[in-house]
């Protein structure tokens, strides 16, 4: 099948140092198109730094990144986003004093091409609202459309962040611990949502909750101290001795990791 050999994202020996400290060391990652790929590893392993490198929020010290076959190593973060690789943040990242609807609308708005039009009325954005409401419905937030985002509960902020990310219709979503700090029901809802949105896109996600990883991810890459320790399916990775020792050994029974930490 063509899409099994088609990688949407490839990195080649990606390195990032912070004043001599190697946070990401020679990471070569390949994300298959249409799959859900997990990036796991103990705290401080370099997962968030990887995300920052991929989305160009940080410059790699060396190495290269290809998205859809195009070298994007030298592009600016906004350019990367416009190519269709959109990230979320580990700490929930909404526009706190915009309403829930406006949060999503601001993401939709770029497609209109009027974002520099300072002479045009805000009313011209109203036609985006049906689409924004549909996206909010998808994450179960439609009844909160008029609420100012800062007043949402933590779980709902994360859901809003997902809806905002989806508004860009990205080909590849990078989700940094999407279920972090969520209760059981929210986690289940987000899992279902991730499965649903993965139907026609690729996802790379950092996740601490092993139930989620086992439940939704096709491929898992384990990172420890900046390097790739193992890669494979959940069954393969969870039997890998090095992984058990470096990462999962901390959790009894090996497989259900902690719910996530900062």
């Amino acid at each position, binding site marked *: 099948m063509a899409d099994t050999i088609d990688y949407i994202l490839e990195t080649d020996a990606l390195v990032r140092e912070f004043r001599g400290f190697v946070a990401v060391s020679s990471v070569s990652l390949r994300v298959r198109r249409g799959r859900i790929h997990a990036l796991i590893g103990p705290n401080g392993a370099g997962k968030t730094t990887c995300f920052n490198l991929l*989305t160009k*929020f940080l410059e790699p010290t060396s190495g290269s990144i290809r998205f859809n076959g195009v070298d994007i190593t030298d592009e*600016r*973060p*906004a*350019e990367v*986003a*416009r190519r269709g690789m*959109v*990230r*979320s*943040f580990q700490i929930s*990242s*909404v*526009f*706190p*004093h*915009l309403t829930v609807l*406006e949060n999503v*609308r*601001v*993401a939709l*708005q*770029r497609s*209109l091409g*009027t*974002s*520099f*039009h*300072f*002479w*045009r*009325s*805000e009313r*011209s*954005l109203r036609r985006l609202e049906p689409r924004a409401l549909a996206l909010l419905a998808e994450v179960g937030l439609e009844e909160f459309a008029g609420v*100012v985002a800062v007043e949402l509960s933590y779980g709902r902020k994360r859901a809003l962040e997902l809806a*905002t990310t989806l508004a*860009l219709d990205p080909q590849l979503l990078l989700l940094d611990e999407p279920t972090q700090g969520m209760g059981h029901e929210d986690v289940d809802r987000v899992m279902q949502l991730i499965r649903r949105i993965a139907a026609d896109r690729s996802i790379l996600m950092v996740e601490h909750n092993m139930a989620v990883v086992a439940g939704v991810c096709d491929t898992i890459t384990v990172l420890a101290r900046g390097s790739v320790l193992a890669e494979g399916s959940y069954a393969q990775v969870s039997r890998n001795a090095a992984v058990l020792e470096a990462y999962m050994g901390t959790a009894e029974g090996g497989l259900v990791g902690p719910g996530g930490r900062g």
Partner: protein
Amino acid sequence: MSQAVRIRAGYLLAVAALLLAPQFFYPVLVMKVLCFALFACAFNLLLGYAGLLSFGHAAFFGGAAYVAGYALKSWHVPALVGLLLGTLAAAALGWLFGRLAIRRQGIYFAMITLALAQMVYFICLQVPYTGGEDGLQGVPRGSLFGLVDLADDRNLYYVVAALCALGFWIIERAIHSPFGQVLKAIRENEPRAISLGYDVERYKLLAFVLSAALTGLAGATKTLVFSFASLTDAEWHTSGEVVLMTLVGGLGTVYGPAVGAGVIVTLQDQLADKVGSLVSVIMGCIFVLCVLAFRRGIVGELQALYRSATGNRY
């Protein structure tokens, strides 16, 4: 009353007040208030809505004042052309400042704008066209389309009022435009805005140029009102004063800075011949009081009062 009706009523009141003001107050004072109100609102467009604290806005105010003054005095251009030239010059200067400063964050941004503004001040002091320490004196007010004599304070007043109203309208529109939405998003959460594909620097640059241009319109208009442009207009003092006006009136409220400008200009005008140089001390005290006790400024505090009284939170 629905919000739309209240807003419309508010505008009607404001227009009526603008039209009637010269019946009750000295027109030149009202014009001065208007110029500084436009200045403060333009400054607030940048600080309140783009989150950028410029400490160099006097360069645009003073720069435009000199350009307009020179064009009016030496080239004898019509009044409106002089104002337009001043505005364009400020916009160009704003673009230059913006290009150099916008990549910097917070205090570094403020410092770079201050440094650039000091360079502009130095240029104003040194070049032969500006009259050095004396400034440009005796700038003719001219006429409007050769029909209305602007030497008459009343006539000039209505032109100035219309220009400032136009400036306020542009600011108001920019805040409530697709562009304004993106600006707010950037102010609220810059990394998130970037991750949505917005080149935040270009948005900030446009905000900076708009703010500089409208500040220029205010400065050029001020030259027309007083028939002179002086070094005071370009001094760092003026950059600080506009910060004060904005804070006193209410940072990030659309018209708060205009109220702040009204209060500060009127106070300075009233106190100047009574307390002399103590004015600076009084201004300093107002500043401290504002920062310590009335963070939201006059309009911001009133809005908060209104909200808590009506239980309406938004």
